[in-house]
């Protein structure tokens, strides 16, 4: 860690001009491969992103123990974009053009990813993005190791239909792009499955919404129409705690109206008394409670690295794990860290995931993931009740009007992130 | 109503105002002739300052007429409009622009266009400069013209404020306790300055200091509990038993 701090100080000094530069020369050793870490360490997103920064450092540490990559040690370059979206772009530029990193692991929110995209395109570098997102994007320089909507939402709905016989749906979300898109996809999907518009209720709330009385009551009302009802929740972040508290207090049990959430993981549950919530569901590609050797080893190593047995693990961490290992494997296979070569090699790379299976990077730069459905337990963990075969991330949803004709394939000769199969043209962009 | 107000400079009739049930001004009537200087006395809480507030538009009366120049209804205007009609006011506590130099204080008060855009493109003319110089001489602060107003003594601030009033070229000056906190010498000088001013403008002086009022030698109005208790020369009102009772207690 201190090594990183020293580096930061030096960058600073270099800009300042003269004061320290002469005394701390020669930091850019050539026998390392630099890995950029672009996660907020301060500001609103620090709470989530700091964990991912530590995850990357942990993975680098492990890799270096195994001898590094291509015979060179990996060296982390950590910057703090401070939850400030424009600053993400600036820090990305700094990492690529100044620190000359070979790859960047980073971003959490879609805004931050959107903000750095032009930089990665312009300077031609690689970004691994480890968080579930709304899809509708495929860029040559980005690898999406989090779930696309079809890797969370649709299997979850399938599960509820089959296992719970749900016929009536509440789509409740925070008013931002991920829930909007996911709900649009789900709405189209449900209608395609013969659910009538009357049986779908859509509700949006602001960030950090804390008074859920009316909405929970509405859900209850909507649920008393003689048909089995479920809530699909894309409620984000802090708003979940008061939402679940209100559910518990108004006596909505999972047996009556189950809630399946896509943004509630082990960390979010840590702030709630989960006893009244037993049976509510979450859909992810990873749960800490997964019973696999890979997972046990990962958790064990993580606890040792972070020196805290209580730290939970979560889905974006697994996505970081997959992305990191895929990159290592591709670099080893290509024998170089050259961006273009690595991008081409990455497609088709297969690495183990933490749930005992494998993840493959597809030509659309998304990966295959199994979808797990977990039920909340009274100890704040999830009990996995369903698991699908690996699903390929669908970047352009088949259920959205604007994107159903689009596909992405970054292999030659197509090399296009938004190829329109109807017009036969590669959409916008260059 | 205008009949009675005809020919007067300031006309208050049956004015009342109350704050949270407390009647600060109670059916007050007062008439000031053009060119007249009037002293207003009264114990604390008699409504002197509130009366000033009403005249200058800071406080709206609940009832009654306030007319300027026999016809202009002051209750409908705000402070700036009333000031531009030609009513100047000096506060009890000297209020000058402390971050500005003495000269700028006068320059800001100088009669002229008051609009924001006019101010943005304003250039000081030679005539204005002469006028400023003259005023500075009148208030005896010529040698301190570049000093920040904050650094003036209390008495000097009082004078500066009077100077600013004069710069406005008002037709009526309302002056609240000009002698408060002044030395005897300063008080005497202030009295003579006011008498000088009264030659060209109407003046209303609110004052506690009886020697000062006596030095002014003008008609006196005694306020008590928001209404006029007595009016006349200082000697006459001093002899008024009601006034004696109010001042000496019952």
């Amino acid at each position: 860690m201190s090594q990183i701090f020293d580096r930061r100080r030096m960058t600073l000094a270099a800009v300042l001009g003269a004061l320290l530069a002469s005394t701390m020369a020669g930091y850019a050793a050539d026998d390392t491969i630099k890995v950029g870490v672009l996660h907020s360490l301060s500001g609103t997103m620090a709470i989530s992103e700091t964990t991912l920064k530590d995850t990357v450092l942990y993975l680098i540490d492990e890799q270096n123990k195994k001898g590094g990559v291509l015979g060179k040690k990996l060296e982390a370059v950590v910057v703090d974009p401070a939850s400030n979206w424009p600053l993400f772009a600036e820090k990305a530029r700094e990492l690529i053009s100044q620190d000359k990193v070979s790859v960047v692991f980073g971003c959490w929110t879609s805004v931050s990813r959107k903000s750095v995209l032009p930089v990665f395109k312009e300077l031609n570098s690689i970004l691994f993005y480890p968080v579930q997102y709304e899809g509708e994007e495929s860029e040559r320089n980005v690898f999406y190791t989090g779930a696309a909507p079809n890797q969370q939402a649709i299997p979850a709905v399938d599960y509820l239909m089959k296992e719970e016989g749900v016929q009536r749906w509440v789509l409740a979300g925070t008013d931002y792009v991920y829930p909007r898109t996911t709900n649009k996809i789900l709405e189209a999907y449900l209608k395609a499955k013969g659910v009538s518009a009357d049986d779908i209720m859509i509700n949006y709330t602001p960030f950090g919404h804390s008074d859920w009385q009316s909405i929970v009551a509405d859900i209850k009302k909507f649920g008393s129409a003689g048909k089995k009802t479920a809530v699909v929740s894309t409620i984000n972040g802090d708003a979940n705690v008061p939402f679940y508290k209100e559910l518990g207090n108004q006596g909505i049990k999972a047996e009556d109206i189950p809630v399946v959430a896509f943004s509630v993981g082990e960390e979010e549950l840590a702030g709630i008394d989960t006893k009244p919530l037993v049976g509510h569901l979450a859909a992810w590609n990873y749960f800490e409670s997964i019973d696999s050797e890979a997972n046990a080893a990962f958790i064990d190593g993580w606890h040792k690295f972070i020196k805290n047995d209580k730290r939970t693990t979560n889905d974006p961490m697994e996505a970081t794990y997959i992305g990191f290992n895929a990159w290592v494997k591709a670099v080893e296979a290509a024998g170089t860290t050259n961006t273009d070569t690595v991008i081409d090699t990455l497609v088709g790379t297969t690495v183990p995931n933490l749930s005992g299976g494998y993840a493959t990077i597809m030509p659309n730069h998304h990966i295959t993931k199994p979808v797990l459905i977990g039920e909340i337990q009274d100890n704040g963990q999830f009990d996995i009740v369903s698991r699908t075969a690996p699903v390929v991330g669908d970047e352009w949803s088949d259920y959205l009007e604007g994107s159903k004709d689009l596909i992405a394939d970054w292999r030659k000769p197509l090399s296009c992130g938004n190829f329109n199969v109807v017009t036969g043209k590669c959409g916008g962009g260059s | 109503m205008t009949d009675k107000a005809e020919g007067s400079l300031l006309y208050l009739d049956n004015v009342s105002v109350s704050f949270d049930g407390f009647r600060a001004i109670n059916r007050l009537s007062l008439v000031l002739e053009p060119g007249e200087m009037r002293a207003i006395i009264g114990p604390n809480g008699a409504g002197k300052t509130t009366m000033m507030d009403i005249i200058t538009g800071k406080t709206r009366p609940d009832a009654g007429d306030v007319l300027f120049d026999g016809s202009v209804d002051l209750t409908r205007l705000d402070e700036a409009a009333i000031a531009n009609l030609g009513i100047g006011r000096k506060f009890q506590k000297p209020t000058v622009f402390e971050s500005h130099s003495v000269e700028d204080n006068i320059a800001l008060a100088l009669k002229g266009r008051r609009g924001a855009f006019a101010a943005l493109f304003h250039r000081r003319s030679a005539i204005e400069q002469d006028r400023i110089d003259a005023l500075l001489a009148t208030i005896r602060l010529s040698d301190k013209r570049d000093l920040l107003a904050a650094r003036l003594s209390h008495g000097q601030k009082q004078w500066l404020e009077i100077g600013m009033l004069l710069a406005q070229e008002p037709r009526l000056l309302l002056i609240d306790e000009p002698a408060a906190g002044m030395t005897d010498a300063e008080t005497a000088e202030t009295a003579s300055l006011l008498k000088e001013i009264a030659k060209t403008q109407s003046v209303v002086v609110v004052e506690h200091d009886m020697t000062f009022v006596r030095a002014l030698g003008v008609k006196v109005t005694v306020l008590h509990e928001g209404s006029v208790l007595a009016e006349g020369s200082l000697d006459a009102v001093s002899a008024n038993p009601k006034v004696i009772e109010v001042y000496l207690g019952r």
Partner: protein
Amino acid sequence: MSFTCPPTNSPFAASISLVDLVWGYCGILSLGHGAFFALGGYAMGMYLMRQIGTRGVYADPVLPDFMVFLNWKELPWFWQGFDMAWYAFLMVVLVPGVIAFLFGWLSFRSRVTGVYLSIITQALTYALLLAFFRNDMGFGGNNGLTDFKDILGFPIQAPGTRAVLFAASALMLALGFVVASAVVRSKLGKVLVAIRDAESRTGFIGYRVEHYKLFVWTLSAVMAGIAGALYVPQVGIINPSEFDPAASIEAVIWVAVGGRGTLIGPLIGAVAVNFGKTWFTGVLPEVWLYALGTLFVVVTLFLPRGIVGLWGRVVTRRAAPAKEVDGSGRQAGEAA
């Protein structure tokens, strides 16, 4: 570059000197100036979105990408016209200007001053924050507007364009400085200081205080809007976080640190605070908030005139009356 202030923050810094125009010179503490900055930025962002044309991922000639995937069928009325640069640039000035004018006209006319005004400016920017977060508003929700391609026909990422934009920002900064100092030196500037020192006295000598406040308020909002418009093409994104009240408050501290009531102060403050931020968040991220918090307290308690004031005291050794600055606070305090 580690020292991140110059490229992206210079327009912001420019707008900050305008915060000082209303606070340092006029005694109006706006906790919502970021709103005008963001509104200007959005107007520019809308123009840049329309310039993308068919190069968006869905290749829709009219609708921006985020509208396509949320199934919008046609362009909302308030997006019309933004394909024309002149119209968009007009809106950059008009939108913040008109909103500031209306807000100021209502507030100053009803004598909402001091802390009340500060609180409702905060409420205003908070309301706008919530509004722009709403996807139904048609401004791209929390993702905002991004993925810009070119500006006035020049590719936005090209080094040449970036250099020109940077130069434009520097020019804007200089221009803002010139305008602000012209305003401050004029008689109008003196009236503003007069209002700050003794608002009622200014009214009683015939200045219509609310007009002056409204003028400088609207002017500063317009310039904040222009600054926002220059900021957006450089950072390539505009989203509702620019409306966050905390961002506006943080900007105020730049002014306080540099020294309010001076024009150079806010610039020094902006540079100093951002430098500190870059340094701290790099070295000890968790210490940054302590440092920033302490800065707020220390500056208000011990450095009422900021760095500039401190410098002035050191250089001239003249016992500057600290009261002058207090005047603003005390005056505004009349309302409380």
